[in-house]
């Protein structure tokens, strides 16, 4: 059967700041700029999750979209939407919530629970002109 890629898109809004306690204040300012403001700021993120697989000959589906949507809601949106990433999402207790780390965190949340299809790509838009792709590469 031919491999088909299916992409589901969703949005979430969250706040964050970039700050590494091992850097001096000057280094934090130089490296992270306005993002280092400890009062935080927010974005409307767009998430695109791409799964791949053979088309089921009985249903014509790569994946049951209802199930995919449920997994995305439960594992990603419930945890991230309208949250402060630094303060409320465990991955970012020790990591800086950059778009790179956010894409990796979302991949890790989905991969272990994605029994219905194979995860191919996680794309996170922080802004319309800035996005990160993660393919699970080490």
């Amino acid at each position, binding site marked *: 059967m031919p491999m088909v890629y299916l992409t589901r898109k969703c949005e979430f809004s969250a706040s964050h700041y970039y700050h590494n306690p091992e850097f001096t204040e000057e280094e934090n300012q130089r490296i992270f700029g306005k993002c280092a403001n400890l009062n935080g700021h927010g974005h409307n993120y767009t998430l695109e999750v791409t799964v791949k697989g053979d088309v089921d000959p009985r249903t014509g589906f790569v994946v049951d979209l209802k199930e995919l949507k449920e997994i995305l809601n439960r594992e990603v949106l419930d945890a991230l939407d309208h949250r402060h990433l630094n303060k409320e999402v465990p991955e970012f207790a020790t990591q800086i919530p950059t778009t790179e780390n956010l*894409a990796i965190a979302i991949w890790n949340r989905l991969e272990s629970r994605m029994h219905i299809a194979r995860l191919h790509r996680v794309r996170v838009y922080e802004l319309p002109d800035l996005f990160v792709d993660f393919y699970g590469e080490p």
Partner: protein
Amino acid sequence: MKAHLTRRYIFSASHRLHCDELTGEQNRAVYGKCNNPHGHGHNYALEVTVSGQVNPATGMVCNLLELDEAVRREVQDRFDHVNLNLCPEFKAAVPTTENLSEVIFQILQRTFCSAHLERVRLEETAMNSFEYCGS
């Protein structure tokens, strides 16, 4: 962990597609309206994709300010609001968006060393886009 980061930029330029080795009639047949003698312009949207290991100290593939600065200096300052046909890069090549993608890729590969350049994607209009990932 290896991630790919893409940033989008805008610049506007004019061009005329014309090949000196073809006759006037052949140029009109190949390039159509793009061969009109006084040229025309586009708002180009450039997507630059870089990749690399995410630095554990910064959480970043590369510093975005450095990428923005490199693209501004090397691409936007060079090609924004100019006639591409008069640029040295197009002295011997037709400024199609295919060739422009390749030129931009080569310029950035030479001048931006903070991450691996994966791909340049250039939208000439909302309907046409071109990608170059190196030879």
